[in-house]
């Protein structure tokens, strides 16, 4: 017998299946679930209880991480609707977006070369602003007037930005050594 694993991540935390969620409610529900199922509660339990508790806690962590991050949440919602976001295969992007990406990439390379921490922070800041705008657009295309194709495109854009943010972090880290 497996635990009640068939339910989706939203149901696990008693949340409505939508992009716009109350993050505080998510945090609280996650902690409540973990307080019940965490292996620390079953350290003197039976073998069956220990195994189940690890499965449950693992599942709760996965669900929480998925719902907590907007991109992962959007990707998951699309997957529930049977839509593949094709992040590895579909690299077609609007030209304007690509130009912006290239400009940022150049700035990052330049800042890295000159060990310019401020320059990196500036790009990271612009990135965050665009990310927030895309999150708002995601809320519209997933909740208000559903357009899954458009939402998938937004997820692909956000994945691009994530990769760039990772590069900035790597550059920041390399400067500290």
């Amino acid at each position, binding site marked *: 017998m497996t635990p009640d694993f068939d339910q989706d991540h939203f149901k696990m935390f*008693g949340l409505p299946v939508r992009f716009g969620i109350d993050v505080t409610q998510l945090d609280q529900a996650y902690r409540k679930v973990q*307080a019940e*199922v965490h292996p620390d509660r079953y350290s*003197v*339990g039976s073998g069956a209880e220990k195994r*189940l508790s690890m499965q449950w806690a693992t599942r709760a962590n996965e669900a929480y991480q998925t719902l907590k991050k907007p991109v992962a949440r959007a990707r998951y919602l699309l997957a529930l609707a049977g839509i593949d976001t094709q992040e590895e295969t579909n690299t077609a992007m609007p030209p304007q977006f690509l130009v912006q990406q290239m400009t940022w990439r150049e700035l990052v390379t330049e800042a890295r070369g000159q060990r310019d921490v401020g320059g990196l922070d500036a790009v990271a800041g612009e990135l965050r602003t665009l990310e927030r705008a895309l999150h708002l657009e995601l809320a519209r295309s997933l909740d208000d007037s559903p357009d899954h194709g458009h939402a998938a495109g937004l997820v692909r854009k956000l994945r691009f930005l994530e990769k760039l943010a990772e590069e900035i972090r790597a550059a920041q880290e390399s400067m500290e050594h």
Partner: protein
Amino acid sequence: MALLQIFEPGESTAPHQHRLAVGIDLGTTNSLVATVRSGIAEVLPDREGFPLLPSVVRYFPDGAVQVGRLARLSQSDDPENTIISIKRFMGRGVADVARYGAMPYQLEDAPGMVRLRTCAGVKSPVQISAEILKLLRMQAEESLAGELVGAVITVPAYFDDAQRQATKDAARLAGINVLRLLNEPTAAAIAYGLDNCSEGTFAVFDLGGGTFDVSILRLTRGVFEVLATSGDSGLGGDDFDQAILSHWRQSQGIASANQKDMRRLLMESRALKERLTAATEAIAAVDLSYGQHVSLGLSQGEFWDMTAPLVQRMLAPVRRALRDADLAVDDVDGVVMVGGATRMPHVQKAVADFFGKTPLNNLDPDKVVALGAAIQANILAGNRRADELLLLDVIPLSLGLETMGGLAERVIPRNSTIPVARAQEFTTFKDGQTAMAIHVVQGERELVSDCRSLARFELRGIPPMAAGAARIRVTYQVDADGLLSVAAEETLSGVHSSIEVKPSYGLSDDEVAAMLQAGFQHAESDLAARALAEQRTDAARLIEALRSALRADGDELMTRDEILEVESGISRLEDAASGGDHHVIRTRIDELSQATELFAARRMNKSVAAALTGRKLEELSNL
């Protein structure tokens, strides 16, 4: 033993019997054991009243072992056989420990972990650590007047899988049931959080004798959520001693010191470091064995300059942890200092300057980790309801596997909350390929050769297919101790292979069994008696838990037949437990545990549902 009372026919005893459990801080320099008594966490001192047990183990040619203060006092008599700072060797190879500076030991490069050749034979760091743990266990059982249910053992948060597994093996070798491996900064946060009822975001800065950790935690009403952890498992107070020692040798040309002199110089260097915590100037002096008298005068300022690079080295992990937690320095509400080495004023100052606030030092930095571990042990042993305190910890280093071209592919990223599982699919690259090698690695670097190799295993028996047709699913599962197990399966054919990641660093079960055998001075019958007592205790615990669960939820969640089945399983186990064969008891325990899995699953589902709908759990069960 009180637990055995449950074997009396008729009613079971009260469900809330106090179970003896301890927290153990197995430190590089000192080790401690603590417990919760009458609701208060306290360190258990040894017979002479000392709370700290020096982590020093001396071997004698006749096989005798001396652990603690006496071994430390006499360490320069026989430095080759008096092992200090063994924690730095746990799960490490010869190349790793070579970085720590000059050592008098005769090292042997065994597969995975280095071994030490002593006058009492070749010893692994696991065995040497087990000697320390054994003494702590006896010390605890003596002062608590009973056998321990188990212990929470602390490890540096930045310990990798090999180091954690080695620690767990050492505990097992010392006859300790490990309730949980707990990260040291998290343990400290528990002691601090419960003491001060703190809420907010905290950084724990833990500089021990040989390891450095920094953890960023968020505390909210009894929930301790580790957001990120970082550190350097090869950086500690010992390095400050070594800095003084090498300065001393260089400045005074003490080149050809023998091992005894070297150990004396090191001891004096350490004493000098400690004096410089309070004094602005101090002097160290040693009479070397060939009659020469050497002394070193050092000012605080000189010592700080000399060790500034070490202090600088600590700030990079701090920045990394903040970045991983997605926080700025200002978001941190408080900084907690842990570990004896944080007493150094320039370390305090560097941390204060970095965070822009005065660090908290109101708990003894030597004891705080053991106290936190004791609080956790008390809960895990079932003496307190677990939902008063919830720990959500993370893995410190990414886990991955080797792919084409010697590159490491990340499967579980660092700072993932545990327990965590992640599956990744791979395929074959040759036509008719029937086996696939899986190389499990840990670390942040791109090249496998720069990461730590944890294990290699093979998935065999893949049916021959065209290249790229097989679907090989590799699943990583990290448990609540931070330990990894890996399984691989070809999903089209169902061929399965799995491994608990330990062969390349830890000890095999057979090795542990052999060492246990050798370690006990008892006759074989005593060993059997111990095994019997352990299985009886396990049986008693399972029966007690099941009876209580049946009382609470049996009628609601089970059919009459299901209940009868469980009850007959219980009586079969009771029969076995009153017999003398520990193998039979184990079999019955496993059978009963399996037979009640359905019940356990329903109870867990019910408790989750109840928690979310806001009903109080007490209304539903009284476990």
